[in-house]
């Protein structure tokens, strides 16, 4: 059986693109999501972005509101806003800030009168992601102002008049305006604020959690665990699905004409998939450790066992579906649906604690749930083998049952694929 496993490992080594994508995916996701929502490695805070704002529309109520919003206490955690005059461009040339936001003259009036206007952002080319965040933020502001202008129309003009007026507006006038604005917002509320995404810290919601910063690297570590589990499902899909690739190349048929028993050929493919999954997992864990996103688990053997159990179950599940479908196309579609469905339900895309209660119950029927829960305990709560024994057992039983079923199905499919 070793020549078969070795051959597949060599093929992956000689043509590593698809495996590298699987490795890169969780790292990329962790980096992006972690940077957007949380702290950096070793609990360090995400570095603040120094933004210069040149307000050429001083006195304009929307320009002033925008400047005020940027300087709010909440934003100061991420932004260091400095109001500048014409010297802003020179400061940018000296590389003193990540971006310069220029609010043009007549900005507020233009929006009220629904005329085109431009919010300029000068990026610091020597920096990578920080100016990009400002640009993205600027686009978001522009989109909201544009839509707000269209939505509120005349009311925005009335508001401007009230703000510019020397005397305080009458309460009735303010009330009527507020009511009209609220009515308009209520009409479009479901479009403007779709409650699709919830953001929060998994740690804050975990009553058993200890210190503010877990033993790992905060959000990066959590996301890495979540996305790694999903990536391992994709690895299983790709590696067990290699049977189709071998069928198309004629190699499966050729192997079937050798004295090798069919069960041996299938088992070898299965073992290769488990080994590849473990290798991808270890590479990701090593990278996470090197980046400081996670710390070494207190019980590495338990982590390895949990990884093995999960990979077994993942390969078994994928193999069952490959045994059931008629062709590669069906296998691709079904596997994708299964992986994405289980990932969404099992906590690879959103922490299970943030899901509605009913979904949290359903999550327990996914492989992702048991793996993520186990890894989180091992990585962030310093748990040992005993604490995750239940998770490992569930995955091993699932893996055993699925593997048995897959073998029965695949032996039958193998005959069809090679005759």
């Amino acid at each position, binding site marked *: 059986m070793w*020549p078969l496993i070795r051959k597949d490992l060599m093929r992956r080594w000689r043509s590593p693109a698809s495996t590298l994508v699987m490795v890169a995916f969780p790292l990329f996701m962790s980096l992006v999501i972690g940077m957007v929502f949380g702290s950096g490695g070793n609990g360090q805070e995400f570095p603040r972005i120094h933004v210069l704002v040149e307000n050429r529309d001083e006195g304009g109520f929307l320009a002033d509101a925008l400047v005020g919003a940027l300087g709010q206490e909440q934003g100061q955690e991420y932004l260091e806003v400095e109001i500048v005059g014409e010297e802003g461009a020179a400061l940018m040339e000296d590389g003193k800030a990540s971006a310069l936001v220029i609010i043009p003259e007549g900005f507020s009036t233009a929006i009220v009168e629904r005329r085109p206007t431009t919010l300029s952002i000068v990026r610091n080319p020597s920096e990578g992601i920080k100016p990009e965040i400002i640009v993205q933020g600027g686009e978001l502001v522009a989109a909201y102002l544009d839509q707000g202008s269209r939505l509120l129309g005349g009311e925005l003009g009335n508001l401007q008049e009230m703000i510019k007026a020397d005397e305080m507006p009458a309460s009735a006038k303010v009330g009527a305006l507020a009511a009209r604005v609220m009515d308009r917002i209520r009409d479009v509320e479901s479009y403007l604020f779709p409650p699709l995404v919830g953001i929060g810290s998994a740690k804050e919601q975990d009553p058993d959690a200890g210190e503010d910063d877990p033993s790992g690297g905060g959000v990066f570590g959590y996301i890495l665990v979540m996305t790694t589990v999903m990536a391992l499902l994709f690895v299983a899909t790709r590696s067990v699905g290699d049977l189709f690739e071998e069928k198309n190349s004629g190699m499966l048929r050729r192997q079937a004409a050798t*004295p090798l028993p069919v069960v041996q050929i299938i088992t070898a493919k299965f073992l290769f998939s488990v080994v590849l999954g473990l290798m991808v997992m270890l590479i990701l864990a090593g990278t996470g450790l090197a980046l400081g996103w996670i710390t070494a688990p207190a019980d590495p053997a338990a982590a390895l066992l949990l990884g093995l159990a999960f990979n077994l179950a993942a390969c078994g599940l994928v193999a069952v579906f490959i045994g059931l479908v008629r062709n590669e196309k069906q296998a691709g579609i079904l596997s994708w649906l299964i992986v994405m469905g289980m990932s969404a339900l099992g906590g690879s895309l959103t922490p299970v604690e943030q899901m509605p209660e009913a979904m949290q119950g359903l999550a327990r029927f996914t492989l992702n749930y048991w793996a993520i829960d186990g890894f989180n305990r091992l990585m962030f709560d310093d748990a040992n083998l005993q604490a995750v024994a239940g998770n490992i057992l569930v995955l091993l039983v699932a893996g055993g049952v699925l593997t048995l079923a897959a073998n029965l199905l695949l032996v039958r499919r193998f005959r069809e694929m090679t005759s």
Partner: protein
Amino acid sequence: MAPVLEVRALRKVFGDLTAVDGISFTVNEGEIYGFLGPNGAGKTTSISMICGLLDPTEGEVLVQGIGIRENPREVKRRLGVVPQEVAVYEELSARQNLDFWGGIFGLRGGILKKRVAELLEQVGLEDRADEPVKNFSGGMKRRLNLAMGLVHDPQLILLDEPTVGIDPQARHKILDIVKEVVAQGRTVLYTTHYLEEAEDLCDRLAVIDHGRILAEGTVDGLKAQLGEGSLLTVQGQFTAASLTAAAARVEGLQPVEIADGRGMLMVGNGGPGVSHSLEGLFSAGLTFDDINIKEPNLEDLFLKLTGRELRD
């Protein structure tokens, strides 16, 4: 010579289609036995049953006296199968492909290394042995495809159209390798639809169509079924009946295949000769647009046996 392969009344039915219809033949040790027939004749289905990829509906396959149904692993150990499609791992090198294939058949260590080196030299790939196969030309891939079937030194080699889609130079190289392998004492079952290959390579061959063996024997023996002499092919404005009637009046002229506007006739040796035969046809009032005189070949035999050309 002892038969290496015995096929008895082999039959394969897929639903309403009978792909192989009760064929029987034997292949003797050290022989190249050809299966000549057009695409869809049942050659690959026969090979698939012989190597255990397909279960026969009826019939029996014995390799060195061992039945494929009774002991498939033992039979497969003695077979080297070279499929029609190039089945190699493109990401791996030629050496890695051969290492893998040898490993499957239980070759290890120095023996495997030596065997792989021998084969790489035999198929002329020793200089490119460690390059990924995806960089190879079609002919090189075909040679590797063949080598992979030989790595475990099998008793019987099943070659299913091993020269399809390659240039004449690469084809000659493959045919040379096959001859070399047979000279080393191996036995080959060779399927092809190229009659030149069959004539050049095979000691004996079977002409197969619609799953049936239509004729079997040596190349000369099969040609002799057309008769001794020259083959006269004529085309023109005549009916099949008029040509048949005219030919019947000419001594030593045997119709092989006659249709409206086209006829193939054998002018027997020892008779009055070709010019006399043509005079006889002309005197019957027939006129021809085209006349061709040649030695009979397997294509003509196939036409005689099936009423259509081999490449139809």
